[in-house]
């Protein structure tokens, strides 16, 4: 993992930010720093996007970070919490607690625009915004993340992780993952 000198340096930065917690301005700076740290925590299953991009981090203040699972049974939930804990600790935010909230339930609409672009570049078709899950018979076509064609078909509603479905492009013949609307 990262070399010791680097993490010591970031621990210093974190301590500086944590020092200013008392004032409102200090808190804003601390939250900004926490968000910067979290933006560097990748999703364990899809490392191209961060926990911020996916909308897993719901809220943060100087004392706690509020996260939400994408799916109730997602095996990455624990790994994500541990990765966030490690990143906070390494940056001098050991006192910041992590809390989990189920309500309101996570939605793929919470994936940021930047996150959607990162998914596409990684080869995963991002979910259309605000679209509900449709039946096999009238699933909304996805755009192939490789060639951009809309001439695609769903192979399986359930894919390699709970959040993805398996699709195939009929234009370039490549299979691809599609992030499920949720």
């Amino acid at each position, binding site marked *: 993992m990262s070399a010791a000198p680097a993490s010591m340096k970031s621990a210093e930065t974190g301590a500086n930010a944590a020092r200013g917690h008392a004032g409102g301005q200090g808190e804003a700076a601390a939250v900004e720093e926490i968000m910067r740290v979290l933006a560097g925590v990748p999703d364990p299953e899809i490392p191209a996007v961060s926990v911020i991009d996916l909308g897993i981090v719901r809220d943060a203040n100087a004392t706690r970070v509020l996260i939400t699972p994408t799916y*109730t049974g997602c095996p990455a939930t624990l790994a994500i919490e541990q990765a966030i804990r490690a990143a906070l600790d390494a940056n001098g935010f050991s006192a910041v607690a992590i809390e989990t909230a189920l*309500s309101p339930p996570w939605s793929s609409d919470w994936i940021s625009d930047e996150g959607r672009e990162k998914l596409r570049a990684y080869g995963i078709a991002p979910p259309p915004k605000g679209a509900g899950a449709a039946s096999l018979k009238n699933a909304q076509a996805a755009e192939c993340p490789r060639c951009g064609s809309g001439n695609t078909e769903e192979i399986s509603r359930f894919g390699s992780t*709970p959040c993805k479905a398996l699709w195939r492009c009929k234009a370039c013949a490549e299979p691809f993952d599609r992030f*499920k609307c949720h």
Partner: protein
Amino acid sequence: MSTLPPLAAYAMRLGDDALIVGQRLSEWCGHAPALEVDLSLANVALDQIGQATHFLGLAGAIEGKGRDADALAFRRDVMDFTNCLLAEQPNGDFAQTIARQFLFSHYQELLYAALAAAKDERFSAIAAKALKEVGYHATLASDWVVRLGDGTEESRTRIVAGLDWMWRFADELFAMDDVDAAAIADGVGVDKAALRGAWDQRVDAVLADATLERPPARRPVVGGRRGRHSEHLGRLLSEMQFLQRAYPGATW
């Protein structure tokens, strides 16, 4: 069960249904007819086990005796499980599994939709979260009922047989008892009997699409909510609970 606070018993039923359905589906892992189906069933199992973790964790918290979701899943014997009998029915062939999932998922989706309006946020939050997942399960199972029913002679024969077996366990899903009444009094419980009409409509619509008739009426089999199970549940638990039975308290 009578020693549990009613809301703990209520949460436990929800958790037990999800846990046993999830365990049954996970038995397909590596054995399904096609890779895509294998992934689908494993994903549904994962969702169910995730929901079970939340509901059983809540049951343990309400009980207040230090039992967590793992303790309730792995350290209870068969008579203490309160899942519906439908959940524990053996997988049989693929069509029988789809028949079970079809009847169960439509019930679970209607149940969670109603439970999402519960006044107690501990219940409504889990239900609202799980509702989105269960919608996928109901669609998956319905699509397969249509494919099998309106498919080949062989697939049709099998889904007819699967539905015929599972149908006798449907009435228990909507049966109400004192635990339900107490949970309703607490602003949590769902009037399951009132969900029957909507369930009938959904199931009938899919069966019509699949060119299938409703199975002939059979004497309903009940008892799961009171811990009276078929012989199948004990075998399921002996596998699921093997590690904790062989090495009590083992952790890693």
